[in-house]
């Protein structure tokens, strides 16, 4: 949770929770905005690999409270084009919502375009493959955070000076179904050693933590930052949740709400075992 932007709202949430508040799970009637296409086109190029195998997931949104949130979309035609040389990568339908290619060619700072033909729509997006610094250090600490016993794992990396950088830190723990991610920028920290921290009161020695650091674009940062704030706690110091607007548009209907994002990132990945 080491991020100034999340820290400040977090600070207020803490005050709330420490002072008086009590929480309980309640039944709430929520509106239903209907089915919308979800494009999870995350091209991740792990450092030290060829990055040829890539998966794009298509699904539809579901009501907020449902017993079956999985709604895969099949029968779409999915292609990604590398814009400088026109090389096309066709992602084949696995009939389970996944579309796979095995011959992708990743190139840093290169622009790619996505095209998905599904039912009456042609969904398109453009994005650049963003590079990322390497993780320089990993540290496990027990005295950080608000409860003395809580284990905290921190990764460190160096932010390049003089350029705007945006990052996504991602922690996939083995002990919990919930992935933790944090979007970061270097607006106030340009050129410094930066860090991302994961802490959880339930994590214990022997648990695995898959840690990824991704380079992302400014627009994707904005998207993930809103997404991150809206999927957390909403106290009186939270901001009003808004519609998440991704970069995929239906050319035949520009007003259609399309969920998800087309992102391309270089990734530094570490699997860490809690000591």
């Amino acid at each position, binding site marked *: 949770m*080491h991020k*100034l*932007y999340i820290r*400040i709202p977090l*600070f207020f949430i803490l*005050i709330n929770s*420490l*002072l*008086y*508040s*009590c*929480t*309980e*799970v*309640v039944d*709430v009637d*929520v*509106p239903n*905005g*209907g089915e*919308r296409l*979800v494009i*999870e086109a995350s091209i991740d190029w792990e450092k030290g690999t060829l990055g040829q195998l890539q998966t794009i997931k298509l*699904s*539809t*949104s*579901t*009501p*907020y409270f*449902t017993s079956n*949130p*999985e709604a895969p979309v099949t029968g779409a035609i999915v292609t990604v084009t590398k814009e400088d040389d026109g090389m096309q990568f066709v992602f084949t339908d696995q009939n389970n919502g996944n579309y796979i290619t095995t011959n992708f060619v990743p190139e840093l700072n290169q622009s790619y375009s996505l095209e998905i033909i599904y039912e009456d729509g042609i969904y398109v997006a453009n994005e650049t493959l963003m590079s990322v610094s390497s993780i320089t250090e990993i540290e496990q600490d027990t005295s*950080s*955070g*608000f409860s003395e016993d809580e284990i905290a794992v921190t990764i460190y990396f160096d932010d390049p000076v003089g350029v705007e950088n945006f990052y996504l830190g991602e922690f996939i723990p083995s002990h919990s*179904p*919930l*992935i933790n*991610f944090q979007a970061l920028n270097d*607006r*106030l920290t340009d050129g410094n050693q930066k*860090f991302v921290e994961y802490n959880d009161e*339930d994590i214990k020695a022997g648990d695995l933590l898959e840690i990824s650091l991704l380079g992302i674009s400014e627009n994707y940062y904005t998207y993930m930052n*809103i997404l991150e704030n*809206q*999927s957390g*706690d909403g*106290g*009186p*110091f*939270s*901001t*009003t949740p*808004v*519609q*998440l*607007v991704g*970069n995929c548009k239906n050319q035949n209907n520009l007003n259609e709400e399309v*969920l*998800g994002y087309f992102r391309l990132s270089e990734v530094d990945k570490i699997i860490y075992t809690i000591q």
Partner: protein
Amino acid sequence: MRKLLLTLLLIIPLIVVSQEKNTISGTLKNASNGETLFGASIYLEGTTIGVTTNEYGFYSLTAPKGSYTIVITYMGFAAIEQEIQLDSDTKLNFELKEDFAQLDEVVITTGGAKKVNIKTPQMSVNKLSSKTIKKIPTVLGEVDIIKSIQLFPGVTNAGEGASGFNVRGGAVDQNLVMLDEAIIYNTSHLFGFFSVFNADAIKDINLYKGGIPARFGGRASSVLDVRQKDGNSKNIGITGGVGLISSRLAVEGPTFKDKGSFLLAGRSSYANIFLKLSDNDSRVSFYDFNLKTNYEINENNRLYLSGYFGKDKMEFSSAFINTYGNISGNLRWNHVFNDKLFSNLSLIYSKYNTTLEIVDNGIDWDSDIKNYNLKYDLKYYLNDTFNFDFGASTIKYDFNPGLLKPLNKNSEVNRLKLDDKFALESAVYVSVKHKISDKLRAEYGLRYSNFLQLGKQTISQYENNLPVVYNSNLGIYQSGTVIGETEYGKGDVIESFNNFEPRLALSYQLNEDSSIKASYNKMSQYLHLISNTTSATPLDIWTPSDTFLKPQIANQYALGYFRNLKNDMFSVETEVYYKTIDNRVDYIDGAALIAQSNIETQILIGEARSYGLEFLFRKNRGKFTGWLAYTLSKSEQKTPGGVAGGPGLNNGEWYNTAYDRTHDISITGSYTLNDKWSFSTNFVFQTGRPVTYPNGQFQYNGLSIPTYSNRNADRLPAYHRLDISATLTPIKNKNRSWKSEWVFGIYNLYNQKNAASISFGQNSDTAINEATKTSIFGIMPGITYNFKF
């Protein structure tokens, strides 16, 4: 400005036609402690001649020669009736006795009930004396002015534990809150759990919700005028109290060889006031001090000095340390030129600052706002038909939007100083109280305000002059491209705004007991509180109007019917209002407001409107007193794309503000059983706060992500609670100087778990979506011991 004043001073005497008329003037005080009384009514029985005392207890009225009965009434005090023979200009000072009505008597006679003044054109005002406020049950027994005013119609806030208050659908930053005329920028201790005003140091408060007189300006929605006590000028007195949250002590008494008096009050919370915090090294605390002293130079000149200093400190396991506080001082000089012309000159300073240390990130954050205010107000009691208020003021603001400092060498952040900002806000005004006929009275005035955004500052220039642009490919708003910078030197005028703000109030008396009133006011607000959270936080930054951020302009219309019933035993006040606000800011999705120099790149300019019906029914006398307040209202906002293009926020459609409450009912009652016991209660019912619920979910990045659409289209469940308190005054008090009382209270008696928020997320074990309700105050018993000697 000065010319206008001089002209006024010269013209006014010319229209004096005062043959055969004489003037009575003087000061009204509380007999027991010498405190001057503001808003007391003085009239000549059997005539329509009458005035109310001003903020310093001064009055002046003019009548034809003759013999009269002069009647003086003030809420909570026994009325005075006195025969006078008016054949020359007369100086008459009065002292009113507090109304300790004997309760065992069958009939309780109270001359000065809290009846509504049906004659004066002033409407939309709620007054509270410190005495009334102290009777209202509160959280943990901590007397709270800001919570008390929310029991009146038209006043709400964003929820328990949220700071500030909202008047007639206006935002928190649209209230001009003044403590002895000094601007208070944050009214909350501990983020809104308690207010910064110590009731022991406060004489009275007046909340102007509409029909705002021309002498006030600078905020769009309301004026909360809080006046400190002057200090007991008759005897040394000590009051104090011990509660669960804090302890209080106030000392007051005569000074300067009985030429003046002083008051010194302090309040401090206990180091670890919250049980939940006691098992770790987190600390939450606040304290405040009030000072007031005055000195009578001679009959026509008096000096007042007031001060306030308050601070909050919150420390969490030495990971965060946050402090914030207001400080203010005011030196005033009352001068009575003659029996018709009263003046007051004020020199005021106030400052609000916040600091935040985030130890892990090595961040130290400081920001503040300071102002110096010079103000000159005059009242001219021309004759029975015309009274004038006029004056001028100028305020110099210094803004420090923030200094970000690395705490140590290993800090993640770089040092960053956001540009200081400077501004000068000046105004002149004149207001006329005009008795058009015996039944029709008017108060009309004009305020002219000017705001200068001053250097030294560097202003960014944007491509196409657009600090925010709509990216139509992505369908989002983004910061514009900076193409250059303009440097302004120290004192250079960067931007200038001028506004004429007309004010008008009318009252028409239907009969002895009822009247209708109407009012219109235009207000300009040149400061903006930059905050995109549901409730304002102490870290929010005040910023001046500039090229991109135009002043907020409010227009408000109100109409009301006022009636006293059963010989003033009951009173009814009904009002409708309609208010529009231009240039209301809202924030682009994902706005980065923290440590932001170029706020204009994060905002869109829209408008707000609110309308409502307010109803207030009071029982003014007897063993049982109290009121019922009901408000039916709407408060909404619209933020189109404007020059930035695109549809705007919420597709450019109207959306509810976070403080929109359709229904708001409060019942407040106080029952005096006997000399020993009295009881108070209040009940509150409100429509839930507007919120945005998810309208679906999607699987992304291994998580279930909620999707949202229409802003503030849903609502939290209705809010309601019942509070009670009992005050025990031991009988033995009667014959000794040490007087004490115990106040026992229960807040939220039936332990209603009111939702402060409902958040949506995945269960950390099952990953299934769930809605989690957070409630702040459950049942909260409290006990306070108060003493006085």
